[in-house]
């Protein structure tokens, strides 16, 4: 049973990873690449770590695996946010299909100063 569960988690994790890889390759602008890739990769890594926890079942391994998972889930969005924020602030171009940019309008006055 636990073998089946961890095998499933592993495969799901792998699929997420693959999605991340294809996403980062195919998406048209940086922000969507991040949308597609960093989350998928985080979920993928999370699934695989859970698979470890399920597979071994010992307390030490489980706590460790869960701690790493927690760590990954805690840090990955921060990292993504940091890159996105930085990328946006230096004017990384958005995809031409982007339909709204409310941050641009909010910032307009002070970009003049810079």
């Amino acid at each position, binding site marked *: 049973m636990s073998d089946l569960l961890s095998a499933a988690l592993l495969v799901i994790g792998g699929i997420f990873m693959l999605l991340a890889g294809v996403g980062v390759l*195919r998406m048209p602008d940086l922000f969507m690449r991040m949308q*597609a890739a960093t*989350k998928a990769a985080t979920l993928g890594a999370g699934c695989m770590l859970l698979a470890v926890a399920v597979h071994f079942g010992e*307390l030490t391994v489980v706590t460790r695996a869960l701690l790493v998972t927690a760590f990954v889930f805690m840090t990955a969005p921060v990292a993504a946010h940091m890159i996105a924020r930085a990328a946006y602030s230096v004017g990384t171009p*958005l995809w031409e299909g982007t*339909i*709204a940019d*409310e941050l641009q309008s909010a910032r307009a006055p002070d970009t003049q100063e810079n």
Partner: protein
Amino acid sequence: MSAFLWNLAMAVAWAVATGTFTLANLAVGFGLSFLILLFAQPFLGGSGYFAKVPQVIRFAMFYLWQLILSNFRVAYDVVTLTHHMRPGVIAVPLDAQTDAEITLLANLITLTPGTLSLDLSPDRRVLYVHVMYIDNGDVEEARRQIKAGIERRVLEVLR
């Protein structure tokens, strides 16, 4: 919170007492001690802990569902040749106030495929979010979804 810690400590004590440190045994210990604490509540004095538990569980279910849903949406776009995205950066006015609230909210938004916390206004009132699917180009609807969906539930759990 102390009730939660108590719960945890009792679970560990259970594991020690039974001598098996496995996940399953710990889970059993946690469940048993949760029940004990729940019943002992009148003797020990009230705690938000027991009220929070269902909220947390409900939130977790909601978030998981969101995660799966949006993942499929993004995955579909990744693997198909045509792009169906209607991306945009929208401003979400925040009800969340403390550092912890804002951070948790922003992180959960980011973690969900399709939304990405881009920046926080200097007065901490507005969170700018990059959204991948603004359905029908309706920015207001997207904003509402975030506020009514995730922000409300996060604040529910935290407050």
